[in-house]
C-alpha cells in the first residue's frame, strides 16, 4: 500500500521549463489586479525565466460558455485565436492564469482529439474571421503548476517561512484547488483529482502544515450562472459556507486558492456571512485570510503586501502577516503611488477589517 504522501504526489504532469506564453484571467485582473504581474515578476526576477505578456489576447470566454450563453464553436474559435497569437509570437508553451481557462483549454484540446471535425471547424472559423492559423501548444499548464515545479528554487530566496512566530508551530494551510483544475481531466493536474498536490506541495515545501478537512474537495460554489445572477447567489454562498463550517474545527491560519474565482468567493462570502449572521471563522473577530498562491509566494519572498494588492481583499490579511512575522507598514495600506492618502474603505459591522 502506498503511504499518504505518495498518494498526494502522484500524477507528475509535464510542466515546461522555460519560455511561456502567458494567458491572463479576467477574474484575476479585476479582483486581484496585481497578482499576475507578481507572478511574472517571480518568474523573471527570481527564476530568470522568459514569459511573454501579449496585449492582443482576450478573455477565453469560459465564463460565458459555462453559463450556457455562447456556443461551443465560439469558445473553440476564441481558444484557436489565443493559440494563433502564441504561434505568431514564437512560443510553444501556453500558461494560463485561471482555472476556468485551464479547464477550457484542456477540454477544447481533448474534444479536438476525439472529434477532429470540431478542430477543423474552429480552424475554418478562425481563418475566415481573422486570417490566422495556429499550432497546438506543446505544453499547456496553469500558472500554479509553474510555482509548484520551482517551489524549492523559489524557497531558496525566501525571507519568511510558513512558521507561526507566535507559537513556533507550522502555519496551518487550507488549500482549495478549484473544480476545473483536475476534476475534468485528473491526469492533467498535479496529484490528480483525488490528491491534488499543486498547492499542498507548496505548503509542504515552505514549512506549513496541510489542513485536511471533510469538504476539502467540495466546490467553492461559483456555479457560473448561479453566481453571475444575483437572484441565484444562494447557491454560491451556501456551498462556500459548507466549506467554512467544515474547515473551522481545524482552525486554519490561512486559505490558499488556485483559481481566482474561488479566491474571490472564499474571501467575499466570509464577509457576507459575518454581516448576515455575525459569524466569523478566524480568530478574534477576523476572518480566515484568503491568498492566491502567487500572493503567498510574494509575501514569503518579502514583497510589500500593499504593492501586491492585498488591501483589496475584503477579509483582512493582517492576522496571517503577523503570524508569519512579516514587517509591513499599516499606514501605507490605503495610499497611492506617492504615499498620498486615499481615505479608507468603510468598516464592516461584524468582521474586523484592521
Amino acid at each position, binding site marked *: 500500500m502506498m503511504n499518504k504522501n505518495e498518494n498526494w504526489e502522484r500524477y507528475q504532469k509535464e510542466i515546461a521549463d522555460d519560455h511561456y506564453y502567458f494567458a491572463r484571467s479576467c477574474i484575476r485582473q479585476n479582483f486581484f489586479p496585481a497578482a499576475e504581474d507578481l507572478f511574472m515578476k517571480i518568474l523573471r526576477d527570481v527564476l530568470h525565466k522568459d514569459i511573454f505578456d501579449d496585449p492582443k489576447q482576450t478573455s477565453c470566454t469560459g465564463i460565458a460558455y459555462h453559463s450556457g450563453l455562447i456556443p461551443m464553436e465560439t469558445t473553440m474559435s476564441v481558444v484557436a485565436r489565443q493559440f494563433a497569437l502564441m504561434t505568431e509570437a514564437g512560443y510553444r508553451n501556453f500558461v494560463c492564469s485561471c482555472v476556468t481557462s485551464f479547464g477550457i483549454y484542456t477540454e477544447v484540446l481533448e474534444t479536438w482529439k476525439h472529434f477532429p471535425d470540431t478542430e477543423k471547424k474552429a480552424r475554418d472559423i*478562425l481563418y475566415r474571421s481573422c486570417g490566422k492559423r495556429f499550432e497546438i501548444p506543446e505544453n499547456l499548464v496553469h500558472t500554479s503548476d509553474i510555482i509548484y515545479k520551482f517551489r524549492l528554487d523559489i524557497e531558496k530566496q525566501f525571507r519568511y517561512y510558513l512558521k507561526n512566530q507566535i507559537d513556533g508551530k507550522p502555519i496551518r494551510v487550507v488549500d482549495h484547488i478549484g473544480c476545473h483544475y483536475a476534476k475534468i481531466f485528473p491526469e492533467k493536474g498535479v496529484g490528480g483529482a483525488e490528491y491534488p498536490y499543486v498547492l499542498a506541495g507548496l505548503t509542504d515545501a515552505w514549512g506549513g502544515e496541510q489542513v485536511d478537512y471533510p469538504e476539502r474537495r467540495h466546490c467553492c460554489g461559483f456555479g457560473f450562472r448561479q453566481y453571475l445572477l444575483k437572484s441565484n447567489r444562494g447557491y454560491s454562498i451556501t456551498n462556500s459556507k459548507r466549506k467554512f463550517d467544515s474547515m473551522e474545527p481545524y482552525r486554519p491560519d490561512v486559505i490558499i486558492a488556485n483559481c481566482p474565482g474561488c479566491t474571490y468567493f472564499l474571501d467575499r462570502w466570509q464577509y457576507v456571512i459575518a454581516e448576515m449572521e455575525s459569524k466569523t471563522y478566524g480568530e478574534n473577530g477576523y476572518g480566515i485570510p484568503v491568498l492566491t498562491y502567487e500572493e503567498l509566494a510574494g509575501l514569503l519572498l518579502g514583497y510589500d503586501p500593499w504593492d501586491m494588492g492585498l488591501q483589496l481583499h475584503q477579509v483582512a490579511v493582517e492576522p496571517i502577516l503577523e503570524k508569519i512575522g512579516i514587517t509591513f507598514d499599516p499606514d501605507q495600506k490605503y495610499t497611492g503611488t506617492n504615499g498620498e492618502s486615499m481615505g479608507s474603505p468603510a468598516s464592516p459591522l461584524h468582521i474586523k477589517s484592521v
Partner: protein
Amino acid sequence: METLYQKLEQDPRYTEGLKACFNCGTCTAVCPAAAVSDYDPRMIIDLVQQKDEAALEQLLRSDTIWMCGECLSCKTRCPRGNTPCYIIQALRALSIEGGFFTDSGQGRKQLALKRTIGEHLLEYGYCIYIDEISLDMYPEQGPVWQWFLDHRSAILERLGASYKMDRAGALRNIDEVTMNELRQIFEESGAMKRFEKIEAASEEYARKTGSRFGEGKDEYFNRLYHGNEAGKNDE
C-alpha cells in the same frame, strides 16, 4: 423535420457525455447544486436516456436544466464514464436554439446573462470588467470594492496595472483590431445569432405576458437579474 433527439445527437457533448447510466446516484451525491436545492442530475440523465421526445421537450422547457453549476464534479465520479454536465450543456444549447428557454423562469434569465457577460465580451474583450461591477449588482463585494471603485485609477497605478492604457498588462484597453477579430469570431461561430435569438424570444415572451421590454439594464432585466419572478417552476 429533425427530432429533438436527432439534433441532440449532433452535439459532441451529448455523445461524449452519455454512455449508459445505471442510476446509481453518485453524480447527485457529489453535486453542489443537489446539495443546495432539489436538483438531481441522475434524474436528468435517466430521463434523457429514455429517448422519449415529449419528455425531452418538457425538460427543455423546465428550470431543471438551468440549475447545474457546471463544476464538473460529476465527470470525475461517474462509474459509467458519463458526464452529466456535458449532457446539460447540450440541453441548454438546444433549449435556446429551439426557443424553449423562455418557458421557464431560470431559462428566461439567459437574457440577463447576455446583457452582462455577453455584452462585456463584445464591448471590452473581458467577460467581467471593473467599470461594470457596482455594489448594487454585487453587494457582496463589500466596502473595499466601493473604495477601490472610488479610487480605481490611483490604486491601479500603484499596483502597476494598465487600466485604460494601450499597453500590455492587467485591465489594459484591448485594441480595436483585436476587438474586431473577437466580434467577427462571434459572428462566424454563431454567438451573435444566439444573442439575437435570446433577445427576440425574450421580447416575444414579454409581449405575451404584458411586460415592458426595452434595452440594456432596463426594468425587465432588473427583474430577471435581481429577483425570482414568480419563483421556480412557475409554469
